[in-house]
C-alpha cells in the first residue's frame, strides 16, 4: 500500500485531484480510497486530502500520518507549514512551482519533483486551476500509475461534471505536465516552528466548554483569541497603498473583511499578518491609491 497527502487551499480542487488519482489507480486494477480532511476551513484556507492505493481491499479508516508522497498544489504552502511532516524516509514531494527541484527549500533534503502547473493550466484551460495538471506530474514522478490512466480518470471524473471538451482539456493539461515534470532533490534546512496546541485534560477543560479569554501555554484561547490566527498566508495578491494618493477616507478600513486596515497619520495601512488579499480595498478606493500585486514569498 502507498499513501499520498495533498496540500492545497480551499477552492483549488485538491480533493478532486485526490479522488481522480484514486480513480486512475482503480482503472489499473488497484483498490483505492480517497478522502478530504473535513475541516471548517473556507475558500483560501490551507486544506488537505488523502489517497491510499493497494492491490487488495483497504480496510484502514484513519487519516494518513506517514505518507509515501506529498503533493503540494499551492507553492505558498511550503513557506508557511512543513509539508514534509510525517513523510516516509524515502518519500517524495511533488510541488506545483516554476522552480527546479534543486531550487526548492524545505525542512530537509528530500526527493522532489516540480512542475509549473499554474502556467500549464493558464495556457490550456485559461484558468489557474492546477488540480488536473498536477496529476500528470504525480504519474511522472512516482511511476505508480500511467499517464494514460490519469487521462482516462480525468475525462471520466471532470468530463462528467464540466462537459466532454473540458474533460479533454484537463486531460491534456495533465499530459503536458507529465512531460514537463522535473525530478531531483530539494534543499533542506528550512526551519518551521510548529504552532503549539492547547490540549486540556478532562479536569482542565472548562465545564460545558464555556470559555472566557484564557492564557494557556499555547497562547490565548476563548474570547477574542482568533487574533492569534494569522490568515496572511492565504494571500496570493497583496494590496500596496500609495500613501501619497491616500486621502484617508477610511472606505477601505470600513470595507476590509479582515478589519486589518488601520489609519496611521491619516493614511491607510495594511496589517499583512491578516490580509487575505481579496482586493476589495483596491476595488473600492475612490482615488485608486491601492494596487494589488502578485506576492513573492521567500
Amino acid at each position: 500500500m502507498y499513501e499520498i497527502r495533498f496540500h492545497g487551499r480551499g477552492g483549488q480542487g485538491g480533493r478532486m485531484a485526490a479522488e481522480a488519482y484514486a480513480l486512475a489507480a482503480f482503472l489499473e486494477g488497484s483498490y483505492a480510497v480517497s478522502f478530504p480532511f473535513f475541516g471548517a476551513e473556507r475558500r483560501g484556507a490551507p486544506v488537505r486530502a488523502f489517497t491510499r492505493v493497494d492491490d487488495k481491499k483497504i480496510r484502514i479508516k484513519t487519516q494518513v500520518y506517514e505518507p509515501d508522497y506529498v503533493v503540494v498544489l499551492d507553492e505558498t504552502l511550503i513557506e508557511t507549514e512543513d509539508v514534509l511532516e510525517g513523510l516516509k524516509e524515502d518519500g517524495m514531494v511533488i510541488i506545483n512551482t516554476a522552480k527546479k527541484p534543486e531550487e526548492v527549500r524545505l525542512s530537509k533534503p528530500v526527493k522532489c519533483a516540480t512542475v509549473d502547473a499554474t502556467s500549464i493550466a493558464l495556457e490550456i484551460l485559461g484558468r489557474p486551476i492546477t488540480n488536473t495538471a498536477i496529476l500528470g506530474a504525480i504519474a511522472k514522478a512516482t511511476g505508480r500509475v500511467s499517464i494514460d490512466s490519469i487521462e482516462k480518470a480525468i475525462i471520466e471524473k471532470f468530463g462528467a461534471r464540466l462537459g466532454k471538451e473540458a474533460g479533454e482539456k484537463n486531460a491534456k493539461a495533465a499530459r503536458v505536465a507529465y512531460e514537463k515534470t522535473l525530478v531531483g532533490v530539494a534543499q533542506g534546512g528550512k526551519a518551521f516552528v510548529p504552532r503549539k496546541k492547547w490540549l486540556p485534560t478532562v479536569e482542565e477543560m472548562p465545564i460545558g466548554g464555556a470559555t472566557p479569554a484564557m492564557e494557556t501555554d499555547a497562547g490565548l484561547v476563548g474570547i477574542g483569541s482568533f487574533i492569534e490566527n494569522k490568515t496572511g498566508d492565504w494571500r496570493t495578491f497583496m494590496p500596496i497603498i500609495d500613501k501619497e494618493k491616500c486621502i484617508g477616507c477610511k472606505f477601505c478600513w470600513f470595507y476590509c473583511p479582515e478589519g486589518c486596515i488601520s489609519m496611521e497619520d491619516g493614511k491607510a495601512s495594511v496589517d499583512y499578518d491578516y490580509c487575505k488579499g481579496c482586493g476589495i480595498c483596491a476595488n473600492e478606493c475612490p482615488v485608486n491609491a491601492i494596487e494589488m500585486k502578485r506576492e513573492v514569498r521567500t
Partner: protein
Amino acid sequence: MNIKDLPEESLFTPGHTACAGCPAPAIVRNMMKIFGKDTIVYTPANCLLVFSGTYPYLAWRVPYLHEAFENTAACISGVARAYRKKGKKTLVVGIAGDGGTYDIGIQALSGAAERNEDVIYVCYDNEAYMNTGIQRSGATPYGAATTTTPAGRKIAGKLEHKKDMAEIMRAHEVPYVATLSISHPKDFLEKVEKAKETEGFRYLHVLSPCPTGWRFDPAKSIEIARKAVDSGMWTLYEAEYGEITNIYKPKKKIPVEEYIKGQGRFRHFTPEMIAELQKWVDRKWKRLYGELPES
C-alpha cells in the same frame, strides 16, 4: 453617523476564517462598533458561526452563544428575558443567515416578533445555504444556479423568485424593520444606530454578496452589493410599526442584466430569464415606490 464616527476598537477580531472577499465579517464588525461592548451575541448554524471561531479560538470579544439552527429568535428571547428579570439593560443580538431566517428559522422569528421581544435580529442574506455548500434557500433569486438548483440541461437554476422576507417582517408591525447594504455605509450605520436606540423587536436585513457561492471576483463584493441596490434587486428602506418611513431610490436605476453580469450563478441566463427577473424587480419596485421605474 458616518464611517469616520466609528470607533477604532473592534469587537470582532481579525484572524477569522471567512473566505477572502466575504463581506459578512465587515458587516458584523461595523455593526458591533455601534452596538458596543454591552452586547450579547447569538449565532445559529451558519458561515458566521464557523468562520468566527473554531474552539478554542474565537473572534468575538463579547459574550457569545450558539445553540442550534432554527431557533435564533427564541434563543435571543431567552437571553433578553433573563436580563429583563435581572433588571439589567443589555443589548441582545442574533445574527442569522438567510436559510436560518427565511426557511428553518421563520417560525421562531415570527413568534418573537409577534411577542415584541426586546432584541435585534439581523439577517445577513447571501441568498443560499453557503455554509453547507451553496444549496438554494427561500432567499435565492430566480434563475440562480446553486448546487441544488444547478444549471442543468432540462432545468436551469432556481424556478422560483426570492421571498420578500423584510416585507413579511414589516407585516408583523414591529417597532423597527430596515434593509441595509454594506455598499451604502452612511445609510447602513444610521440604520444600525437607529436599531440600537429603538426598544422592542428590531429586524435588520443586510445583503451579503458571497464570492464563493455567487461565483464572482472577491474584490467585487461591495461593487455587486451596490449594483443590487441600483438595479432594484435589493431595496433599502426603513419601516416603523409596519409603516415605511424612509425609502432609498437609486439615482439611476440600472437593468438587472447589468447586475447579473460577472456573477457565475447567472451565467446560463437566456434573454427570457433576464426578462423574467426584470419583471420581478419591476413588480417589487411598483409595490414599494408606488410607481413603475422610469425606463
